[in-house]
């Protein structure tokens, strides 16, 4: 069995985002492997370690720099990588198109990916890829079991938990509670240097969405400190909830 993992390179979650000339400034930003995808890589490695898979392939669509995210996954223990060179402005549709192409070439038995990227938070690519391939898809999986050509997952559903079983090949997007990703050892990092990473040019796909403008969220207003007797405070807080925060009260 072969497992393929889609990874995205994103900003560090603690990065200081500044705009310069209407675009996000690179200064003060470190790039990391999307933490949600890290969980997908870990799960793929565990599948391999259980003896269920022979190979773990890591694919990323992005700029040359995205190869660092692939190297991180290789250092964790993945076997080889493929970088699909694609424009940074490509939208979810374009990304899904090129990833689906690679996946159909590679023909893995299962594809894992984080359910969302830490930067844009759009949460679309895995679902789109499954749709393009015509594969079954389990989203936001918190467990994964593979047996008899089937994958079974627990996944988060509104207000509850859903157990889904699909026939392989399938696309499964992972939630962070699935596992604790490992820290790449020096042994892993050294071995990763020798592992193959293929670079392919993405087929030309026109994005359907266009970015018009980047804007920073409005600065948070300073907090308010209320002082006084409990009775007065309770009234003041209730008044605040009703009139200033304008919380809708369902009856």
């Amino acid at each position: 069995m072969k497992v393929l993992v889609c990874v995205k390179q994103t900003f560090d979650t603690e990065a200081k985002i500044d705009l310069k000339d209407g675009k996000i400034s690179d200064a003060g930003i470190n790039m990391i492997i999307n933490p949600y995808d890290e969980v997908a890589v870990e799960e793929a490695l565990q599948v391999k370690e259980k003896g269920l898979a022979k190979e773990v392939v890591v694919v990323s669509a992005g700029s040359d720099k995205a190869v660092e995210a692939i190297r991180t996954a290789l250092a964790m223990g993945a076997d080889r990588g493929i970088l699909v060179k694609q424009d940074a402005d490509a939208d979810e549709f374009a990304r899904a198109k090129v990833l689906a192409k690679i996946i159909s070439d590679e023909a893995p038995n299962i594809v894992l990916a984080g359910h969302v990227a830490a930067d844009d938070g759009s949460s679309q690519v895995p679902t789109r890829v499954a749709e393009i391939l015509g594969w079954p898809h389990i989203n936001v999986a918190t467990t994964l079991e593979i047996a008899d050509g089937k994958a079974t997952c627990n996944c988060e559903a509104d207000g509850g938990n859903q157990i889904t079983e699909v026939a392989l090949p399938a696309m499964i997007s992972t939630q962070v509670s699935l596992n604790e990703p490992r820290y790449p050892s020096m042994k892993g990092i050294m071995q990763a240097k020798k592992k193959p990473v293929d670079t392919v040019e993405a087929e030309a796909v026109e994005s359907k969405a266009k970015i018009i403008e980047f804007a920073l969220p409005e600065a948070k207003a300073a907090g308010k400190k209320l002082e006084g007797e409990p009775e007065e405070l309770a009234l003041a807080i209730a008044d605040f909830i009703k009139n200033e925060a304008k919380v809708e009260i369902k009856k």
Partner: protein
Amino acid sequence: MLFGFTRLEVYDVPMRVVGANVPYEWLIYLIMFIPIGAFCYGLYTKIIAWLQANGRINRADKLWSRIGSLLFYALAQAKVIKKPLAGWMHFFLFWGFFILFMAAGIDASHHWLGWPPVEGNIYIGFSWVVDVLGFLAMIGILVLAFVRYVQKPERLNDSKSSDGWIIALIFTILFTGFLIEGLRIAAQIKLATRIDLIMYESVASPFGWLFAKMFAGMSLDGALMWHRIMWWFHMALAFLFIGMVPFTKLWHIFTSMINYFTRDLEPSACRMVENIEEAETFGVENIEDFTWKDIIDLDACIRCGRCQENCPAYLTGKDLNPKLTLIQAMKTHWEEKVPYLIAASSAGHDAETAEMAMTAEAEAEEIKPVMEQHLIYDVVTPEVVWDCTNCRACMEHCPMFIEHIPKVIDMRRNLVMWQGDMPGEAQMAFTNMERNYNPWGVGFANRAGWLEERGIREMVNLLPEDGEEFEYLLYAGCAVAFDDRYKRVGEALVKVANKAGIKFGYLGTEEYCCGDSARRLGNEYLYQTLAASNIESMNNYGVKKIITVCPHCHNCVKNEYPQMGGDYEVYHYTEFLAQLIADGKIKMTKSLGAKLTYHDSCFLGRHNNVYDEPRKVIQATGCSLVEIEQAREFGFCCGAGGGRMWLEEDAVEGYKRINDTRTEQLLQPDPELVVTNCPFCLTMIADGVKEIEDASAQVLDVAELVWRAME
């Protein structure tokens, strides 16, 4: 002479004839080769064993310092006597045995070299020294037996039967020595025509004279006969002693000397891994991967337990016991494994030995468990490896200069960089240091933000922006930049310096984590990456003098950066403030008058021997410092050293956590303030105080105290 013997006489001048009254005395010089042979054989097997260690280390530099160290710590027993009762008793025992052994050597030299006998006043003086020291040695061994079997301190919690019979053997050798002397003098008294002809012996051998008085009622023949019997008995035991040295705990007599000579003479630092990019393995996975020095350390451990009784992990019930679960566990494993290592290493030499190795391999079939035992997982255990806070109490108090911390770090290096096996919290701290250059994981772009936040931006020369000339670089560290509580300490220090007319240079976002936690948690690669970045930044700005805030940064920048070419003059801010106070540059405006206790952080105290400067600074603020029992060299760790700041610590049943234990010690004199000099200690102790319901003491840093007195 072959069958006869020299008669015992009363001589014309004060003297003693070696072997007088003992038939076949010359045989001793043949028999002597049996214990010497056993000793040499034992020594040979030990050296062959030591040669199986693969790790490399250079301890042949600074020859004169090493010779000085050997003489000081062996002859003056300078470390041993730090534990007063047992230490001084050992001092007596050492000197008694040393002098008696020398005296026996001089006696033998008469036989071999034909030296003239020692006579007259020289004899009296010589004999007196030997007699008195021999008696003190006997007192010493008796008191040591008393300590082990009556006083029973907790540190000696692993007494073995061999401890007992070695004490008995030493006592018997010394005691029979006095019996021989007493019997000889008793016989001489009877032989003397006038008592005053032998009276010199009461001066030359004061204790022998007392023993002689015991035998006053014995006949001359009886005394002479018992003298012969005791003489042979004494010699047999002495030879047994010599022959046993390499095979028993007596071996410490030699390993101690090796350790005093080969000890680490450098300031406290982790061992450097050179060319880490090209390394093929990391840390120590198998016991033979240690250096010969580490292996001799195992041989040198005499199980005195001084490490154990000062270890914060052991004292709070953890698995780590530096004596038993670290050093002795590895020693046992080493002794079991080394015969197979020797058999395996001789295999490659030639066809003949290869055949022998085949046999050894077949034998190895049976003992597979020993060869398959994993040093870290089966022998020491990862729990023990992670329990250590690197507080250095074990190394400080070890009379043998055993290097515990480097062994722990070598095993952590293997776990982290090779096995990829570490606590999840360590992994988190590493990722944070990698991505944001601080263990808290706060965005690095905001590293200089605390200056604005605390309103002191104008008081600091932020080098990437201001780029003014500066004398002192403030290496503020991650805690000052990112820990909300500790930002106030950074602020206090900057304000104090500002009032003293000093504007620090500061690297801001170009300052990275010093790497101490990464290194001591075993991530040498990450440490070297961070250290290299810092050294590059510091060199870029032409840094010469550095003031550090956190003692972990201090130890790292001062003692470890030189390994990577970063040579600076580094002062901890408490040293700096003490100097400013001494120079009259800091003027206190009020006397605080608070009663306080002071916590010696391990990395400023034991690792760097800075004990007095912080105390001087505290006293200058007009506070009264109450010294607690566990202060200075005996300071008890807060629990956060060695990267443990980032790991969870669960209290073991029946014990408190390390920080709670330390907090209780600090609160014992009921102080108004508890003062520290380290961000980790401050966090740990402040947490400890919060745990105690009615505790009202405030936990402050030295810098804050000074600013309070200046404001």
